[in-house]
């Protein structure tokens, strides 16, 4: 990779690319950035091709300023730009790419994907760390926080993306989703399958709120299909290694 020093159209002067292409969730995206941070963030997803991108993303200074204003913690402009870029990408997904962002931690084990979803702070990262501890190196983290889900070849796949939460856990890979597991803290480890109607409310908390009717009408058939095809579970778990074993067994045919 050749780095060039450029005076950019906006206020910043930085080391990095000013426009670059990536491929995430099999979508070719061109990012027209103002700051270097997002380029470094995306370095494992760079896509070199002569083809035109399927999606072009550019964030204006005004949007970055708004993001900084609403952020829960103080954030820098370059970080805020990266956040805005991903949100812009994700808003396009349902309508144009039959896919969507679902806030969750996705791991791969034995070629199957497991998505863990919970209110932030519940312990998704802790739980998937337990899987690594329990099952070893065969467990691979696809995306620690913000995977893109997309139907392909009759199955729902979860994709790694560079946007993946504070731990920075992601892999440029995809995995077919075997199950979705909602986490709740509990003193004992228990798991049970839940019906789609119980899962609906829980899933909505993990999605980007649709902006318009077009997005709703594109997203709902995808959610409907996901709820019909991918089983959902509710796991009450503590932070002992046993939690990973109980979760695995529960999602593979035997319950506790």
């Amino acid at each position, binding site marked *: 990779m050749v780095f060039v020093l450029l005076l950019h159209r906006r206020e910043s002067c930085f080391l990095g690319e000013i426009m670059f292409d990536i491929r995430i969730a099999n979508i070719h995206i061109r990012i027209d950035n103002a700051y270097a941070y997002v380029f470094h963030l995306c370095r494992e997803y760079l896509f070199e091709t002569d083809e035109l991108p399927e999606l072009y993303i550019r964030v204006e200074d005004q949007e970055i300023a708004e993001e900084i204003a609403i952020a829960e913690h103080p954030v820098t402009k370059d970080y805020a730009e990266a956040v805005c870029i991903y949100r812009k990408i994700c808003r396009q997904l349902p309508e144009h790419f039959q896919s969507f962002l679902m806030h969750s931690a996705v791991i791969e084990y034995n070629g199957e994907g497991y998505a863990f979803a919970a209110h932030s702070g519940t312990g998704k990262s802790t739980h998937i760390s337990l899987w690594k501890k329990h099952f070893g190196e065969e467990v691979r983290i696809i995306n620690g926080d913000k995977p893109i889900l997309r139907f392909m070849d009759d199955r729902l796949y979860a994709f790694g993306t560079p946007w993946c939460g504070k731990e920075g856990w992601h892999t440029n890979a995809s995995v077919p989703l075997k199950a979705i597991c909602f986490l709740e803290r509990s003193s004992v480890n228990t798991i049970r399958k839940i019906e789609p109607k119980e899962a609906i409310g829980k899933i909505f908390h993990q999605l980007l709120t649709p902006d318009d009717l077009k997005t709703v009408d594109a997203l*709902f058939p995808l959610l409907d299909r996901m709820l019909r095809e991918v089983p959902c579970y509710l796991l009450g778990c503590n932070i002992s290694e046993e939690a990973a074993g109980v979760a695995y067994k529960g999602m593979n045919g035997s319950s506790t």
Partner: protein
Amino acid sequence: MKIKSGFVLRELAGEYVVVALGEASKIFNGIIKLNDSGRSIWELLSAGCEREEAIESMLKEYDVDRATVEADFDRFVEVLKGANILE
């Protein structure tokens, strides 16, 4: 009495759900699940029906006595008002 704009009713996995779009999601962030009669009331309110008109329509659609329909309607409206969804 009308449902604020930005709320849409859709069917998902055999359930009726209401989601708030864009600006409306700042008023109400989440989803509302409705049963069949809830869906009817929602649609009547969305269409701008007033109380009497909505109750008459419910009486035609469901085999329930007037007192029950009135009580259900009023309770439904109270919940929506409480959630700041009606204007």
